[in-house]
């Protein structure tokens, strides 16, 4: 067990890569995306000369795999870095450190042209269907642009393909000449999905795709996403803060807190048997539509600490009901607590539990 554990924070990249490789399940599910020790700091500048006075540690050493054909959910509070993670995985933002391997190639090592070609394989669906569509372009131009610039189809062939895509996402092909403002929120989201599908991508990062929609529309869009996944063998990285949505659509779920993934497990296991105290608290906050059921809600004290200056040791120790002395000083290791169930908490670390004494690390 010990050699399969990854020590967060102070791990050297090669050591991490080795340990992560051991995580890959023996079954034939291919890893499509491997994120290793991904870090994204945003500089804060101040003063007259815009000196860098600090960093917002939006994503701080995140590692996970996305297997081909699965949906990996990423949940967490606002500001925990889940959206940033999605953007960096697509290289819409440059990382501060770490790597993202797409089908074995580190995308941050690709040059401009190689990256442009790779964009055919990875797409994004946005949260806000109002700001994600160019108000001055017709639906046909929005959905068909990628086909044109990647030289897939132009002219009549492009139009045919766009009409087909509109039909696939449940819109009428006659909508092709309309402008975004002529559609409702749900329809706009469908246009966004058609655009993401245009180039037959392998990976789609769904950045809170239903959060901005009416509840009655949410399920329609979720079902559409599920159908499309089946039909086109898509892999999703599904970023959301709505636990019910994540539970519904994900195969595996990662829980983020202050720029780190604190727990990663198959969806049923995570919801039935959460290991990390934060996950526990998060799950206890799901409203149950049953007034007779009494629940023990774990109410966390205080606010999320600032990502500019995150707490020492375990980042959750300031709000954790079980925090011990060690949690304040030593960062917990990333440990596989059950089959394919990973968690970073001292309390779940078998080595720590057997010793129950001070810090083992220098």
């Amino acid at each position: 067990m010990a050699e399969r554990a990854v020590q967060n924070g102070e791990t050297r990249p090669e050591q991490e890569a080795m340990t992560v490789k051991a995580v890959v399940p023996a079954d034939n599910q291919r890893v499509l995306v491997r994120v290793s020790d991904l870090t994204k700091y945003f500089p804060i500048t101040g003063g007259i000369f815009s000196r860098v006075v600090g960093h917002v540690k939006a994503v701080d050493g995140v590692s996970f795999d996305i297997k081909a054909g699965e949906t990996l959910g990423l949940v967490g509070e606002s500001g925990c870095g889940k959206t940033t993670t999605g953007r960096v995985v697509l290289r819409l933002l440059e990382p501060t450190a770490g790597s993202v391997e797409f089908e074995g190639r580190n995308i941050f090592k690709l040059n401009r042209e190689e990256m442009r070609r790779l964009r055919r394989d990875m797409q994004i669906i946005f949260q806000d269907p109002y700001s994600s569509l160019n108000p001055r372009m017709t639906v046909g131009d929005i959905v068909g642009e990628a086909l044109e610039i990647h030289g897939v189809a132009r002219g009549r062939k492009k139009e045919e393909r766009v009409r087909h895509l509109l039909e696939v996402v449940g819109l009428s092909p006659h909508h092709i000449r309309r402008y975004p403002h002529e559609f409702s929120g749900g329809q706009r989201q469908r246009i966004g999905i058609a655009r993401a599908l245009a180039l037959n991508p392998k990976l789609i990062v769904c950045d809170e795709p239903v959060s901005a929609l009416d509840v009655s529309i949410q399920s329609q869009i979720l079902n559409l996403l599920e159908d499309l996944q089946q039909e086109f063998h898509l892999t999703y990285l599904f970023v959301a803060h709505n636990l019910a949505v994540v539970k519904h659509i994900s195969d595996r779920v990662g829980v983020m807190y202050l720029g780190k993934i604190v727990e990663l497990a198959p969806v049923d296991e995570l919801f039935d048997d959460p290991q990390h105290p934060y996950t526990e608290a998060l799950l206890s906050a799901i409203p149950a539509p049953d007034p007779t059921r009494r629940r023990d809600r774990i109410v966390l004290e205080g606010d999320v600490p600032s990502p500019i200056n995150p707490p020492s040791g375990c980042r959750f120790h300031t709000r954790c009901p079980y925090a011990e002395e060690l949690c304040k000083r030593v960062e917990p290791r990333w440990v596989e607590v059950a089959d394919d169930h990973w968690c970073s908490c001292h309390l779940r670390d078998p080595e720590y539990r057997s010793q129950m004494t001070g810090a083992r690390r220098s």
Partner: protein
Amino acid sequence: MPQVELERPTVTEAPGVRAPEVRAEPWARIFWRRFRRHKLALVGALVLLALISSAVLAPYIAEHSPRKTNLLNRLKPPDAARGNYFGTDYYGRDIFARVLHGGRISLTVGFLSVAILATIGITLGAVAGYYGGLIDNLIMRFTDIVLSFPALFLLIYVIAVVGPSVTNIIIVIGVLSWPGVARLVRAEFLSLKTRDFVEAARAQGVPDSRIIFRHILPNSMAPIIVAATLAIPGAVLAETGLSYLGLGVQPPTPSWGNILYEGQAHIRRAWWYTFFPGLFIFVTVMAFNLVGDALRDALDPRLKQ
């Protein structure tokens, strides 16, 4: 892949996602409806139309030639019977004809120099705003430098060096007055480039140049059109100012500025000599400003529908 497999029932029939029955109002009609609300701007637009057509059709409207002197008919007051609607000047030339022909020069200078300044301003502002960082800093500091020169002084200096001609005036005004547009375009790009639809274009591998010109620029056209419209009277004034100082259009070619200059010596004896070119300058500048203000209101995307 068999076609059938991809067929799926369209869900537009579902209650929440019904397509709008009526097509949304065309963009142009919304624009017209809003523009119409400004009565003064409508007047301004009509005046501009009249000014432009009078300049274009000057040879057909004026009965006299703007260059033909008549020493027996000097400094005569307006006389409709003789066709000298605005009187005659010191050399007996018809001021009406000279003002209309002068309008050709003034308006040409106005439109062309604004075309130049808009091109430079849009390009520099777009590059600065889109790329940011060092490029942005370099371009904007250069903009500050250009802006820090007293405009008229610089105009006079450059014209004195390159020599006065209509082409030179157009180029010099255009090349010296783009900073305002550049700043405006930069600000637009700064706010638009963070929008999701730009991110979406980047995610699809759309090249930068196409993002700038196809995605961001069309969305920032409204303030650019307004700024360009409001820059035209500035250019017209700069031209008349230069001509008044003798550095613009050279006599005997008429221009509003040099008619004013010639007329000031006779201002006590012949009020019409300076009054009519002055009136045309005033009305032109006023009309452009009124139309520009109305455009600003009509094109403002915040006032949706």
